[in-house]
């Protein structure tokens, strides 16, 4: 057994430090059970995050294949993203507590491979904690860090999932040995501890999930949103004041549609066109969502009138003074969906300024930031 010249004094020798952790729960079976739950939650977060990224910022090859169904797709996937992300907080804390004595392995590594494995764990831990922290604070729209949220969160997710796969590969024998309960002995208190972790997950879920799950709304005590609180009973992400559109007058407003046979309509003319009502959710990447009855003109009717072809994509321009979503693009699958509306009313009332008066886009399975408000132009793209 090799001894290092700088070996620490007996009281601080690694086996002595590790032996000072008295709980019997710093053991592999507990780690494997928690790891399974946490791994599943991470995977759900990763996949639902990719879905949102794909819908918001599609790479070129995907652009023409974005589905406008299921209607509630974005609402469910992003609700799930935030619910599982919040569930990860107690799960990750419990998992890390269980394996914490491993931190004091000495010497830190006995081979290059082990050094790389521990480096991989550092990447996994750093990215995972930062992902949960930035994700949670993003739902509060609180940004105390100096880097951009969305892109950093996105790339860190790849690092975390990559680190997780490496970690699973490195620990595969231990995982296999502890996969089934019958193969490991009963450890006093393990079941009670795991039950406590599940209760913690249940508690944080119950007090926050009401922002996206309607039947949990009455327990929504700590979520940053309540889906029924806001003008006309709906939350908003960008107010008319913030967008500089609070003073928009219906009389002066015009809708311009460009295309092979472009035209301009007043609000009265638009309201005189055939009106449709659709029940659609407004759903945000921050997890909250709310369903409402929207009434307005079908976007496909407006495109037909402009002589746009079936395959036409659309650029939507808002009256907003600035911001990254002042103009958005809409793929043909959305533009031609019979549920996609240029809405003038919500739940029977004329749109409030905060909801995009005089007209806004509302489409199924679509990120909230792309449901452009205060629309002034629709440009048909070839």
């Amino acid at each position, binding site marked *: 057994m090799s001894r290092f010249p700088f070996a620490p004094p007996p009281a601080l020798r690694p086996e002595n430090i590790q032996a000072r952790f008295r709980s019997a729960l710093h053991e592999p079976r507990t780690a494997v059970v928690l790891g399974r739950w946490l791994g599943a939650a991470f995977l759900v977060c990763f996949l639902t995050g990719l879905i949102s990224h794909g819908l918001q910022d599609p790479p070129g090859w995907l652009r023409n294949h974005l589905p406008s169904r299921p209607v509630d797709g974005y609402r469910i996937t992003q609700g799930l993203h935030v619910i599982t992300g919040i569930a990860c907080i*107690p799960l990750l804390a419990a998992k890390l507590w269980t394996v914490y004595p491993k931190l004091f392995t000495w010497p830190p590594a006995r081979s290059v491979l082990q050094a790389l494995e521990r480096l991989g764990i550092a990447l996994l831990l750093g990215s995972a904690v930062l992902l949960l922290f930035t994700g949670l604070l993003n739902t509060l729209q609180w940004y105390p860090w100096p880097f951009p949220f969305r892109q950093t969160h996105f790339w860190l997710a*790849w690092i975390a999932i990559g680190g997780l796969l490496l970690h699973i590969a*490195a620990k595969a024998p231990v995982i296999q040995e502890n996969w089934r309960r019958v193969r490991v002995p009963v450890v006093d208190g393990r079941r009670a501890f795991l039950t406590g972790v599940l209760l913690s997950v249940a508690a944080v879920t119950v007090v926050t999930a009401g922002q996206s799950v309607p039947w949990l709304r009455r327990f929504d005590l700590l979520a940053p949103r309540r889906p029924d609180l806001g003008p006309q009973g709906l939350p908003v992400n960008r107010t008319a004041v913030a967008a500089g559109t609070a003073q928009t007058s219906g009389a002066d407003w015009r809708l311009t549609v460009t295309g092979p046979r472009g035209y301009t309509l007043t609000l009265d003319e638009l309201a005189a066109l055939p009106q449709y009502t659709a029940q659609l959710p407004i759903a945000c990447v921050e997890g909250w969502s709310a369903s409402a009855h929207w009434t307005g003109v079908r976007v496909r009717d407006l495109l037909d009138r402009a002589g746009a072809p079936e395959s036409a994509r659309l650029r939507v321009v808002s009256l907003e003074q600035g911001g990254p979503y002042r103009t958005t693009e809409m793929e043909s699958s959305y533009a031609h969906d019979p549920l996609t509306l240029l809405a003038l009313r919500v739940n029977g009332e004329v749109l409030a300024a905060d909801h995009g008066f005089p007209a806004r886009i509302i489409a199924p399975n679509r990120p909230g930031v792309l449901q452009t408000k205060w629309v002034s132009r629709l440009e048909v793209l070839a």
Partner: protein
Amino acid sequence: MKAVSEVPGAVGTQRTGGMVTTVVRVVGLAGGLALLGFGGYGLLTDQYVSGHQLQVALWAAGAIVLHDGVWVPVLLAAGALLARLVPEVVRIPVRTGLMVAAAVSAVGIPAALREHDHNGNATLLPLPYLRNWLLVLLVVAVLTGLASALTVLRDHGRRQQARPGARPHAAEGEKAAMARTHSYRTEVGWTGNRGTGTSDYRSYDRSHDIDADGRPRIQASSDPAFRGDPARWNPELLLVASVSECHMLWYLHYCAVGGVVVTGYTDAAEGTMSEDEKGGRFTEVVLRPRVEVASAEMVARAEALHADAHRACFIANSVNFPVRHEGAVTVRSPSEAEEAGPESGLTESGTD
């Protein structure tokens, strides 16, 4: 580290598991490196993150330092305090309540901190979060109190049932919620009647047979110091052997599931008993396990696992004298162990 299933003599099911393990390792390694590379490349080349990469790295490192260096030590201190201040019977409900409270606080405190800070958007953070957080903590506290009271009542009921005089197996029928119970039956038959029975303390042999359903009989006696037969086992030896073998079995298990490949194990255990005016008692058992492991990087882990085995050992947990272990771990690869044969190295009987 070698996969556990590669150890010679692994049984068939483990070999199948070994295949799965190998596939998991190869796929995990290749896929993990690919995703890690993709994420790292993206972070370095993304036009929005550009110029912020060092900040991201520092924040991630800070997250590790704060978690491992501040949060977990606080948690451990809380756990130690809990063990000292809270009676054992209610420790589980109290600990569970604290876990739930901590989890709820992790989401409640940030919201409470930002309660009035909604950037002019009244639909963001529209609730009284400080009040709600305290309300949730109150509910958790009340439920914890109720659960603790129930636990105390149930524990009291169990004590009543298990009071002296109650039949030892009475608890078996009861559905014990906490743990599985096992029962062990042995039969001891005295064989030392020389014809006059115990008419005099010199008139009988201490010899007896120990039987347990279908197992080889143990011919036993008492310690020669108490007129026993030195050629036979005695209760004191069996007790020391029991502590020693129990420790070994737990130890081998923890090694097997903890990635340590043990290739040899001998334990020259020794117990000390002292007599007093009432009779006597064991004052200590010292285990001296000499363990051989397959490779050098397992040594530190192998040394540390004795503590786990000691904590788990059924017998050591049941006796009222300390069980110490003075282990030594050396390296010998599995192939060497096979060549040398199972007998080599086992020179000490551990019972002298």
